[in-house]
């Protein structure tokens, strides 16, 4: 296996060498995509981790809207359906199709790493969205654009410590699908954030696999065991919605915090505006930034791009929710 990897690297180097000779510009920085052109037609392949999650559908929608603004861009979205094997095969399909840029939100990091390497070896720039594969942006893949799960949950924890429960009290966490990277990061982020206030205890944490029905059941049980829970941190908006039903059912006034800040009638922004939840922390999609970067590479013949673009979270609270609803 070592030899194969080395052979393909060698091949890539030789091909790159040949390309340089033809171009005759051995020293000048090469554009990331040689076929770049102001008025060219380009295919952008987006390998999505799992369309079944509303957040990911939201990413798809924003990407489609942003890509539509650029006349020469055609966006193709493949749904990995929450399965690393399916997603790997879809990335390979994009390589076969020779898409001009690969955007990817890997379902899990390590399993998709070899597929991303194959795309890079085939000369396709890879922009990773929201989730990373193993390695360094700018080297093992072209760039990473996304939010920081840990930091977002940390903000939610600090907000709880300072604003919601300055006098302390019991809190609980609904975790995403156990074993998945963002679930672990958001859980740890919140727990670290509330540490700012020593009078706060996290009395319960349960996994609800990102879905509202499981969240409702889990939070109802938590409220039975710990009737004094004052704040619930839900690792995504859908679980926050389920938790709200449980709190109403138990007749408890619990302050609920969501994560993602999805738009639309079922999303977190509206729930905060209506006063159902205390807050939600947006998880920025990075869609606009990804299309902007694609324009730089494909239309403006960029020779390099920012390897890491961190899109900041916005805290959506009663103060700004109504105003953000229209957006």
């Amino acid at each position, binding site marked *: 296996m070592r030899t194969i990897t080395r*052979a393909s690297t060698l091949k890539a180097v030789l091909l790159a060498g040949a390309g340089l000779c033809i171009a005759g510009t051995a020293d000048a920085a090469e554009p990331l995509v040689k076929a770049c052109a102001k008025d060219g037609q380009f295919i952008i392949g987006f390998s999505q981790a799992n369309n079944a999650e509303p957040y990911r559908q939201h990413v798809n929608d924003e990407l489609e809207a942003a890509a539509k603004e650029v006349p020469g861009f055609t966006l193709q979205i493949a*749904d990995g359906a929450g399965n690393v094997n399916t997603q790997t095969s879809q990335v390979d399909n994009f390589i076969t199709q020779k898409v001009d840029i690969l955007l990817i939100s890997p379902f899990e990091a*390590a399993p998709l790493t*070899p597929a991303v390497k194959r795309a890079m070896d085939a000369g396709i720039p890879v922009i990773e969205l929201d989730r990373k594969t193993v390695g360094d942006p700018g080297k093992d893949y072209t760039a990473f654009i996304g939010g920081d799960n840990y930091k977002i949950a940390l903000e939610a924890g600090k907000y709880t410590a300072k604003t919601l429960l300055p006098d302390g009290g019991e809190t609980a966490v609904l975790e995403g699908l156990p074993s998945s990277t963002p679930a*672990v990061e958001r859980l740890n982020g919140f727990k670290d954030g509330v540490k700012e206030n020593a009078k706060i205890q996290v009395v319960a944490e349960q996994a609800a696999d990102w879905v509202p029905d499981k969240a409702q059941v889990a939070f109802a049980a938590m409220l039975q065991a710990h009737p004094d829970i004052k704040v619930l941190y839900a690792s995504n908006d859908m679980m926050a919605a389920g938790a709200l039903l449980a709190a109403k059912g138990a007749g408890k006034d619990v302050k609920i915090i969501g994560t993602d800040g999805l738009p639309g009638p079922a999303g977190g922004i509206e729930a905060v505006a209506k006063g159902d939840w205390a807050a939600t922390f947006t998880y920025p999609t990075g869609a606009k930034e990804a299309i902007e970067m694609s324009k730089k590479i494909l239309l403006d013949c960029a020779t390099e791009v920012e390897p890491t673009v961190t899109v900041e979270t916005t805290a959506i609270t009663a103060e700004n929710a109504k105003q953000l609803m229209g957006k």
Partner: protein
Amino acid sequence: MSDEKISAAGAPVTAAPQKHRDPLALIVRFQSLIGLVLVAIGGIIFSPRRHGEILFLNPDNIANIVRAVSETGIIAIGMTFVIITAGIDLSVGAVLGLSSVVTASMMISGGFGLIPTILAVLVMGIVFGAIQGTISTRFRLEPFIVTLAGLQAARGLALVVSGNQYINISYGDGPGLAPPVFAVLGERLFNNTVPVATLVFIVFAAIATIVLNTTRFGRYVFAVGGNERAARISGVPVSMVKISVYAITGFAAALAGIVHAGQFNFGSANDGMGYELTAIAAVVIGGTSLFGGAGSMVGTVAGTIMLGALANILQLNNITPAMQLLATAAIIVLAAVLQSLVRRREGLGR
């Protein structure tokens, strides 16, 4: 000595010559091969082209198709045995997850070598399957229920073993690292053409074909599924055969789990979710009857590859995943309807 009686017991359903007279039966017998050929032709016709090259036939693309189906294919091979005995095994996807987690954690946190790890995981799969088979036969429970419980148990165990974390596999020498040779499962051999995962699938399929078609055990499997009472009277060790087929699916799921861990350098309790359904679909499309007593390994392999090729051509043409699901649904229904028609003609079905 008892062979004659057994084949007599299995005769109404397994006797091939009679079937061949019915053209419909002939179509059903080879339905997945026919389906595979049709999908391949469709793939060639509808394939996007680049500089005249048909992308669908690009060697990398073919390798991608057969690699992507190798895990569900390995599971489907095991599932074929179970379904021929008129059983079902819903636990396989979860056992794959458990196996990939155990593989990763034995090598990374346990410091075990490659060979002991692989052997232990395979034995674990066999034992897991055999326990399900034993419970099902001993207490006369529907395998559907027993393996549904098995699915939950395997996912639960996988979460316990992994401590709710995914386990990355890093390579190198020394404790806490997997030997680099394990990563070969994610590579291609023979001048970078044949994915190793596919080789495992094909070798396993070949062995399974021989076992099913040429050994006494294979005849027992058909006999139990064709008519369990007749088989019992003829002296077939029915319980033993049933327990064995679940041990085989357990082994297959464990093998697929090892392949999964090696391909993706990773063990997660969520691996293989829903694979049981893809595998059952491939087996049914392959012409194996859910009523038991009839089925073929070649059909299963063709059915598996057909589903992979279909997904591939739809993606190459940028057709939405919704359409992929609908197309798969239509094919499953078509395969089942064809089977039922044949059964009715033979006076077996209702």
